[in-house]
């Protein structure tokens, strides 16, 4: 394994342990490493977007017709975000991106996430299909706003709450599962060769930090 790769793994494991020090308490080491990764991530996003857009899209298009040069000034109009007087020019590129985003999913959201959902529910094979339909109708009715949920509607809305709560229970279960897997990956990395060399270093630093905290608390109590 080359020097560069070993070095980057050691820095990565130092980074992981420094950020884990947040569990002890928020400290300067944690804040410095966190700012390092926010800066590096923003830097990476900027250069990889710029390079791919130039190589794959702008350069080949410029060869075909000079009209493509117009995309550059329109793109630079984003920078009017920072001007007090001409802020409204920033709205032109934003209008293009929001408009196209709205357009591409305008009909498709209505078909896939509304009409196809209703059609899918209409096919009822067994009692579980009936339960699914009842659950969806009552849970959807729970959000009905312009009518008091009194009389018979109270039971419909109450049943809807039961289905929502069971579904949210599954949501909490999967969220816990997800967080466990996240930490397992970090633990696997820390236990891998050469990353685990940093663990004793971190433990020593932690011990010093805890000892300094303990001494500071001791001095404070004696002073009082």
């Amino acid at each position, binding site marked *: 394994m080359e020097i560069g*790769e070993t070095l*980057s793994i050691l820095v990565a494991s130092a980074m992981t342990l420094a*950020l*884990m020090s947040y569990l002890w308490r928020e400290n300067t080491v944690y*804040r*410095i490493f*966190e700012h*390092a*990764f*926010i*800066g*590096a*991530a923003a*830097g*990476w996003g*900027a*250069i*990889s*977007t710029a390079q791919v857009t130039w190589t794959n*899209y702008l350069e080949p*298009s410029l060869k075909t017709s000079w009209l493509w040069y117009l995309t*550059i000034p329109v793109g630079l109009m984003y*920078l009017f*975000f*920072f001007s007090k007087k001409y*802020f*409204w020019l920033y709205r032109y590129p*934003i*209008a*293009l991106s*929001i*408009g*196209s985003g*709205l357009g591409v999913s*305008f*009909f498709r*959201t209505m078909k896939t*996430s*509304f009409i196809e*959902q209703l059609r899918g*529910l209409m096919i009822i094979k067994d009692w579980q299909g009936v339960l*699914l339909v009842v*659950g969806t109708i009552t*849970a959807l009715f729970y959000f009905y706003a312009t009518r008091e949920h009194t009389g018979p509607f109270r039971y419909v809305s109450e049943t809807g*709450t039961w289905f929502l*709560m*069971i*579904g949210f*229970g*599954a949501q*909490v*279960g*999967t969220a*816990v*599962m997800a*967080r466990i897997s*996240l*930490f397992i990956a*970090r633990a696997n*990395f820390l236990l891998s060769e050469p990353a685990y060399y940093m663990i004793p270093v971190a433990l020593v630093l932690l011990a010093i930090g805890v000892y300094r905290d303990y001494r500071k608390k001791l001095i404070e109590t004696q002073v009082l």
Partner: protein
Amino acid sequence: MSLMFKRYVPWGILVAMTSMVAADTIIVQTDLNNMIKSATTALSIIGSFAVMVSVILLTRSHAGKIRKNKLAVESWTLLGCMWVMIIYGLYRFIFAGVRPIAEPTIQYIFNAIVAPGDSTVYALLYFVIASACYRAFRAKNMRSLILLIVGIVFIIGRAPIGQLLYVGMPDLANWILNVPGAAMVKALLLAEVISSFALNIRVLLGQERGWMGRGD
């Protein structure tokens, strides 16, 4: 006159863009489809300039912190990491033609700082969720009682150990996902489509001007 260019022309562009692209998704007609395809390339190029805004915002806010307090180590670190990545990456690409994805030093920085940073901060949620499970998750009413019982069945049911404790646990967890869970998700999806579609119509009608940001 100036209100025309400040508000109505951008709104007009948005409505025109929406209707053209929406038409492309439902009409199969070669000229229209090719035009929208070229428009997509143009919009991808224009959209990539937005990255500059976030880089400048970060630089301005942290430069301000440094001006106030010369020793703001965190801000120096952030600006240092960001601008080293950008300047070195551009230099290597423009002069040596090496792409950032293939540039070894940039890959070392990414693997040393960005990859572990992101995943560790999210991995910390593992400890936060465990502590919240013990100290804050309380079955105070019927709603949270159902939620907690189903949550526990799920946490154990979906892990391999679930089958050892009770043979039917994984099947129960799967049934919860397939029927009540699916009912909740479908209801929330329909509700979300309804509210986002109504909001989109208000944007198209010009009543919702949040996207225009500050100013008249």
